[in-house]
């Protein structure tokens, strides 16, 4: 079964180990500026969020490429850039709705996540489990479990309704 990167921002501490792992695997240098995965800091909210290519099935970047430099890796499902074919026209960077394909000034080509051929370094480097590589059909499983548990009439939830539940109840009544 295909696997996908699962990103959980609430676990991210902003250490940038993923960015260094990514840049090292792809460019041979520890350099966040060359990473295909990016961690964004939201200072006022006190949160960090990692973000990278989700490997769309009908990939905008791939369809937009005029020279067919972006191809599917059948084993991983990743959309990979063929450096030798890419002409650096950047149309894919416009086509991608998520901004995860970017132009590299140094090489004159575009760069994007290729799942490291099925062994993504960012996931291995993440110290908090904010980035994991899991079966692509199951990325939502834990979130489903959490919601499912909320509906469960456990002793604890009867004894102490959450603040949010109380507010919701008050609004409703």
């Amino acid at each position: 079964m295909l696997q996908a990167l699962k990103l959980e921002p609430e676990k991210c501490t902003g250490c940038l180990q993923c960015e260094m792992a990514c840049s090292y695997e792809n460019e041979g240098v520890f350099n966040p500026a060359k990473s295909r995965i990016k961690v964004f800091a939201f200072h006022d909210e006190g949160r960090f969020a990692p973000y990278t290519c989700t490997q769309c099935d009908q990939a905008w970047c791939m369809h937009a490429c005029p020279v067919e430099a972006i191809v599917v890796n059948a084993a991983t499902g990743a959309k990979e850039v063929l450096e030798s074919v890419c002409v650096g026209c950047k149309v894919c960077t416009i086509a991608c709705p998520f901004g995860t394909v970017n132009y590299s000034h140094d090489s004159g080509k575009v760069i994007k996540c290729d799942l490291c051929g099925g062994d993504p370094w960012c996931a291995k480097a993440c110290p908090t489990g904010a980035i994991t590589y899991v079966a692509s059909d199951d990325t939502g499983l834990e979130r489903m479990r959490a919601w499912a548990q909320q509906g469960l009439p456990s002793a604890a939830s009867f004894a102490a309704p959450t603040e949010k539940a109380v507010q919701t109840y008050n609004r409703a009544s």
Partner: protein
Amino acid sequence: MAWANKVLRVNLSDGTVTDEPLNMDWARQYLGQRGLASKYLVEEIDPKCDPLGPENKLIMTTGPLTGTMASTGGRYSVVCKSPLTGAIACSNSGGYIGAELKNAGWDMVIFEGKSPRPVYLYIENDHAELLDAAAIWGKSAWETDKILHRTHQDPQLRIACVGRSAEAGCFYAGVINDLHRAAGRSGVGTVMAAKNLKALACRGTRGVGNIKDPLRFLQATEEGKRVLRENAVTGQGLPQYGTQVLMNVINEAGAMPTRNMRETQFEGAHSISGEAMHEPRKSDGRPNLTANAACFACTIACGRISTVDKEHYTIQNKPQYWGNSGGLEYEAAWALGSDTGVDDLDALTYANFVCNEDGFDPISFGATVAAAMELYDLGLITQAQTDGIEFKFGSAEALTQAAELVAKGEGFGKDLGLGSKRLCEKYGRPELSMTVKGQEFPAYDPRGIQGMGLAYATANRGACHLRGYTVASEILGIPEKTDPLSTEGKPELVKAFQDATAAFDSSGLCLFTSFAWTLDDVAPQLDAACEGEWSAEKLLEVGERVWNLERQFNLTAGLTSKDDTLPKRLLEEGANVGPAQGKVNELGKMLPHYYEVRGWDSDGVPTSETRQRLGLA
């Protein structure tokens, strides 16, 4: 290699910037960061110089592992002669600025002279230039950060700068980077502002690539991360509670300096502890703590991100403080809290925000407020001096108003900006200043932790917990437990901690890894990254060399063994409560033997054999 092999020299007097190769002979002896920059400083300035004059230099420096995947490999230090102590200063900070500087291709930046007008240094990889700072001079560190991001239209720019306290001459102003990380101690920000240098704004996109043995480096750093993950302190305690994990532990040990160190336990400790930061506030139902934040490359993430309740008296109608920002570390919580007798967690968090916003050290600030409160208690300071503030122990209002005054350098804030030593001298009671060499104590009462008394008395930058943290052994049992109330073996213990610490501080790694790592864990990482051979033994020797180099700087600057002492209160007044009740610090039993262990003569001067052994002759 791992070093970028390039130094940026900025002459502020003539406005020139030049690059030069890193002195690799010195790098082999002093490694990087604290050690190597101290070597540059010793070679380039007269230790007797006026710390606030143009002849002092200020060095921002990285270590060889800064900017790499080694856990915590993001540190940088600011090195200069300190205006607070007159001794050598080296203040270490995390966040992202150190790695950014290294990614831009620089090991260190040496600032010399004094600019005729306010300027800031802008670096984009090889390109460096001094730019006019008229738009940011007079602004807080937070406003400066915002304005520079807007001016350069670059959200990824990293910024280190001074706030208004430094411009106003506060003796303990730091250099703030990434909004709430700080090279905080010893007044390094005061020196920066005295040079008319407001900020460093840096963008580096070149990366760190010249690792000696990449495969071995990845294996060694992975192994290091495993050790941190599996250690109870770095794997659980620090991530969960931050450094605030210590508040209740140290209070129980009876080593919690309280109300200007009159007392050794604080009845309000729990209210301001790491545990309390997790508890929902009664007022708005939210806990003080929002999240952990890591510095660059750090897999521990002890950093705290916090909020203050919007309805708290400190921030009503002040929306700039309504969001999240850097929360309380143990040192800030202690100094702002138990040392002033204030147990209002949100008030402390607000005071800490203000310290970050305008760039001054919460340890020295809190301890100076505590000294002022004692002077007020004794009637030596009255409301005539305090701008009408009732400066009583336990007053959260006095604390938070004091922070606002020091931030702007206004009114009584000018007195408080002097630091505890100069303040107590000014009001005629120098013995009430809880300082060594003019620097305020951190959060461990040395009557309850004997080794720390010796560590404070001999620390090269004045009283400091980050120069020889024997608390690890005496309280936490790392690497092995020693009796905190005994002086037995402490000279050797203090020396071992001091030397190892100097090596950690020269590497680019965070000292907090040493809860789990020894130099045996650091050596393989350095050895795989850096040219040359780096064993634990060699690192310990580097540490000892750095320690003696700093000592020699201080001796030449005019400090003597008479400065290796503690305030009378700690040597003569017994602890009032707790396990150490009735005990004083027995420094006199430890100091002479410490000099022997160090290979120093009875005046605390390194002997010629010691200097020769360390290559310092």
